[in-house]
């Protein structure tokens, strides 16, 4: 397939069905790669801060890509629920149609509502996808990032801290690094019958007793 044919195929597909999710996912993918690279290239910043910011930026976009896709697709699915003749015709006429009172007026209204619903389905699908993507950008992604990135960063930082340079950090106390064991001691009553000790009262401080 020549470049021209491939371009024609891609452009015709985009011209017929340009999903709102395509562009946001493309932007998030390139951002997920480029933003951390740009951050790491900054010579003025402290290396630790650079690493932290780059991981944070990468994680944000890793979260954003599937969320954009899922929000768009799920919202788009709602179009099939909403694009029903019931939602495009007079309520009274629909009730009559449901009861089986099919007059020419009811039949005509139902047929035109059915046609309208079928014609509007692609538009509703695109509009709902767009609303889904906007909701993801406005609420879902910032909320998910706020909830997940900090704990993830803490885990990553802890791991990095442990494998830093092999030196023991005496200034901070990491409880998880220390194991406490209960003494393995069993009470034995037979000790008092061994006659190893004087049972008579021992007075004074004389060494050896008696």
């Amino acid at each position, binding site marked *: 397939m020549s470049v021209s044919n491939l371009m024609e195929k891609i*452009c015709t597909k985009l011209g017929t069905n340009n999903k709102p999710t*395509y562009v*946001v996912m493309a932007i998030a993918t390139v951002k997920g790669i480029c933003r951390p690279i740009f951050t790491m290239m900054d010579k003025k910043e402290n290396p630790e801060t650079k690493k932290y910011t780059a991981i944070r930026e990468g994680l944000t976009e890793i979260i954003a890509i599937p969320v954009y896709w899922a929000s768009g697709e799920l919202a788009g699915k709602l179009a099939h629920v909403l694009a029903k003749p019931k939602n495009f015709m007079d309520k009274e006429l629909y009730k009559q149609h449901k009861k089986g009172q099919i007059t020419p007026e009811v039949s005509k209204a139902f047929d035109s509502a059915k046609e309208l619903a079928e014609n509007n389905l692609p538009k509703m699908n695109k509009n709902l996808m767009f609303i889904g993507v906007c909701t993801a950008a*406005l609420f879902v992604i910032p909320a998910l990032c706020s909830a997940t990135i900090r704990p993830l960063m803490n885990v990553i930082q802890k791991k990095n801290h442990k494998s830093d340079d092999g030196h023991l950090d005496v200034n901070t106390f990491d409880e998880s690094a220390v194991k406490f064991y209960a003494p393995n001691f069993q009470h034995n009553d037979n000790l008092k019958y061994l006659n190893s000790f004087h049972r008579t009262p021992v007075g004074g401080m004389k060494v050896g007793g008696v």
Partner: protein
Amino acid sequence: MISAIANGLSNSTLANIAQNTTASVSIETTLKSIGRPGFILIDNDISPATKKYAAAKEFLYQATCLAVYLALITPVFKKGAFTLAKKTFFKNKPEFAKFKNATEYLDYHNLASKNITNRRATLIKDHSRNKFMHDGLRDELTTKKDPEKYPLIKGTIELGSLIGSVLGLAILAPQISHVTIHPMLRALGLEKKEEHSEVPKLDKKA
């Protein structure tokens, strides 16, 4: 209630925006500039000063993105993609010969997406009386229920916008914001100017 929602969602203008890369990206960037600083401001685990600084920084970043996007995408990539395709990739395609530029095609596409009654009403208005008088385009719009929309041209413009959006928002905007955000934050009084300790020059004469 549900009927009203269904009717609202069947809106052709909204469907056109949803399928238009430039419009949808602009709306999403505007929403991000509200949503992201908003979420930073309601986070109770951060100190008020840090919240204010981070929210202002995020807002300025998104605003810079939007400005770069609007300044770059429409004039350069949208129009450039049409011109480039017409001259190179699709120079033998007859549909490209029908339109002078991307603006004329997009104008045609907007009309073709409307229903025939609205289309006719728009075309008899004063400013549209002499529009699309060539290549049978006006006849197509006024007589056919579903006029030809030329998806290849639409797709070419959308692909140009998509490439421009990625370049503009993922590569160019972070670079520009990196240079502009700190002076803006300083102007707003949210960041102090870095104080460099002046190293006295060596007095060679002494």
